[in-house]
């Protein structure tokens, strides 16, 4: 299973990078969303997918059966942080639309020489 997951994660990264290289601002943010999904799945996969019970203490379940709780805690933190950053970016993009009037990254260059 981990092998397949690794390949899928690679695919997610590939799609994310491809989107981030495009010129539309919203597609770039979609790319970052895909990238964080890939990263979260990578964390989960690297922790091992072999546990047979959720990491909640229950009768009749030995410690070896629980899924690894530590990656899950890390992913939970990462999800919240990436959500915060994504929402900030989105509002930033929304404000940029309002002020600049474009979502084309090629028109948003900082260097004056090229204008």
């Amino acid at each position, binding site marked *: 299973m981990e092998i397949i997951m690794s390949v899928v994660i690679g695919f997610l990264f590939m799609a994310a990078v491809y989107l981030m290289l495009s010129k539309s601002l919203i597609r770039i943010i979609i790319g970052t969303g*895909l990238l964080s999904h890939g990263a979260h799945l990578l964390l989960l996969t690297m922790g091992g997918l072999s546990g047979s019970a*959720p990491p909640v203490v229950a009768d009749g379940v030995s*410690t070896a059966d629980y899924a690894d709780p530590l990656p899950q805690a890390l992913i*939970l933190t990462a*999800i*919240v942080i990436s959500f915060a950053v994504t*929402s900030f970016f989105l*509002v930033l993009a*929304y*404000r940029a639309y309002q002020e600049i009037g474009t979502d084309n990254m090629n028109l948003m260059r900082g260097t004056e020489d090229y204008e």
Partner: protein
Amino acid sequence: MSLVFLIFLPIIAALFVPLLFKKIGQIHTGWFVLVVPVILFIYYASLLPVTMDGGTRVSEFQWIPSLDLSFIAYLDGLSLLFSLLITGIGSLVVLYSVFYLDKKREQLHNFYVYLLMFMTAMLGIVQSDHLITLYLFWELTSISSFLLIGYWYTRDRSRFGALKSMMITVFGGLMMLGGFVLLSIMGNTYSIRELISQAPEFISHDFFTWALVLILLGAFTKSAQFPFYIWLPDAMEAPTPVSAYLHSATMVKAGLYLVARFTPIFAASGTWIWLVTGVGLFTMFWGSFFALKQKDLKGILAFSTVSQLGLIMSLLGASALGFHVEDAAGTVFKYAAFAAIFHLVNHAVFKGSLFMVAGIVDHETGTRDIRKLGGLMSLMPISFTIAMIGSFSMAGIPLFGGFLSKEMFLTAMLAIAEFDLFSMDVWGVLFPVLAWIGSVFTFVYSFYFVFHTFAGKHKPEELPKQAHEAPIGMLVSPAILAVLVIAIFFIPNVVGDWIVKPAVLAIQPFLYSSPAEIDIHVSAWHGANTEFFMTLGIFAIGGLLFWSFRKWKQAYEVFPDNVSLNRLYDSFMYLSDGGANRFSAVYMTGFIRSYLVYMFGFLVLIVLSTLVITDAFVLDLTNNAPIGVYEIIILIALIGSTITILAAKSRLTAIIALGAVGYSVALFFVIFRAPDLALTQLVIETISVALFLLAFYHLPKVSKKEERIRFKLGNAVIALGVGVTMTMVALASHSQKILPSISEYYKETVYTEAGGGNIVNVILVDYRGFDTLFEITVLGIAGIGIITMIKLRLSKKEGQHENK
């Protein structure tokens, strides 16, 4: 007072100069400044008896003891000679500048502050025994020289000359620092005295040649040797007292001092002898040849300085040969070091006076262009006399000091040709030949300088001012120097015993144990030997060339102006500036895509090459979880929606598909037994999609035209690379787990220690609660940031103010 503090006397005096200039404006500030070098000169002169007996004085001031850094003033014959030159000629130059610079029109406080800074720096160079403080003072001379050359900073030429000299001398200074560091590593000490005592061990060290070449680069750039001499003619934009002081008598001799000081360390090497002698002689020839091409009085003197510095440099190189000869004290090689120091003194004296005369001519006629000058002999008789004395000494004519050093120079060069080590016997013949040709041209330009200025026809209509003799005060300094020029001829052995021999002892410490052992007796008549006939030849050919100068001076037009070292320097500066601009213009595109491409490209390159080079890729399938049906179904959904995002024409579709990806991930979390993650992922994906829709709704109308993401091969290759890299890293790291997880501890103690059942939650709030605290902070900051972005509209408020 301690020697080491005397070094700092001028720079401390400089602190009071602006005050004196502002408060006591009616008296020329130079008079106050004059006190400093005079006091120092008298003090240093009082130490002459010490060094005459081979004695030395050492004085130390600890600066950073933990790094073994201290100011050590070490005064032996060589240092004392230079200290006397610096303070003696310094006094005369200050006196001259009092009459040269107008107290009303000039910014004297700047001038004297820079000059005193320079004086401290030079004294520091020649007295430092510590390599690092020597370098410190070395750079201080570069800086103060830069300030002095750019003294009239409103002129373009001044700024150009200052910058050029700065670039070249600081380049050499940095190289020299490298050499010093290597040298201190070799000897495990910074003290030059201790390095000299260990010198014989260095020759086989790996760093030896590097240190040698780097230190020589420093010396050659400072002393204007080929091909670094190009800054010196441009430094002539400085006020004439500065040219006389820095660019003839002191700063340009700092490189000579360095070579002389390090001769005992490096003399064992053939590279040193070849480089120092060869470069010196070639510089002498080159400088003397091109001096005749100059039209500017100070230009002629600048090239002549270059040439004479080359002469002294070549003699210093030849003095290193003394270390390779049995019983060198009994052979002709002993002359080289003596001749070098003797000529160094001679040159400082006559070149100082010549610069001052050039300044007087400039001051009293308004021009330095030799084509407009002429016939000033009867108008300025005293200046003419001084100029003639200086020039004749430079040409090496009897009755003047220069004659004696020229004879010894020829002796030393003839001796080299017979030396049979380092293949000198093959190429050594070139040395006396080059020396002779250089001397001939020296003779010609010396006459050219004095007679084309003072003899011939007077052209009053071309001069900006009516020419007349200079005020007496301005003539005092050059007159003193001119008297010295003649005095040196008549009492050479006094100069030799008092000043030159103690300095020679410092250059060749292994040959002699005290100055008294050096049995060189200078006499004006030394028999009808080869040198004598060479000198006769110089006079004859030189006289002939000077007489026919107008006929052959077209020969200089043969050399095209655009092929020159200056042009090379200019184009190098232009290329490094413009090239750097063009280079950054190429890669700093301003497109965020370019920068992402660089980052991803290097990520792929570095990670993949590390995997390959360290042979880190391993695939191990033993610990894998089984593959289930549900997983496959969700995987298909995930991949399908990702492809939809990529292929979507409408951005709305892409947003919905991203939501589908998020929900598939949540389902994964369900399947892989992570209930908390699944809950959070579902909620957050919902909110995120809502936000995406908000952003989509507000898209500007102009770009609402939907278009499919255009396929670009470059982007696809980069993206594929990143994907493959991540997969390989994931597979490799998963296959090589070395240690068991620490999660066993959490699983076992979650109830007994923390009193909870949900292990993930207990980790978040108990075991690793700090992560959670700051993740809450991140969320809070994002919220505040969003509110600020929406509420705060400063640009509009400003616009309203403008409208009011």
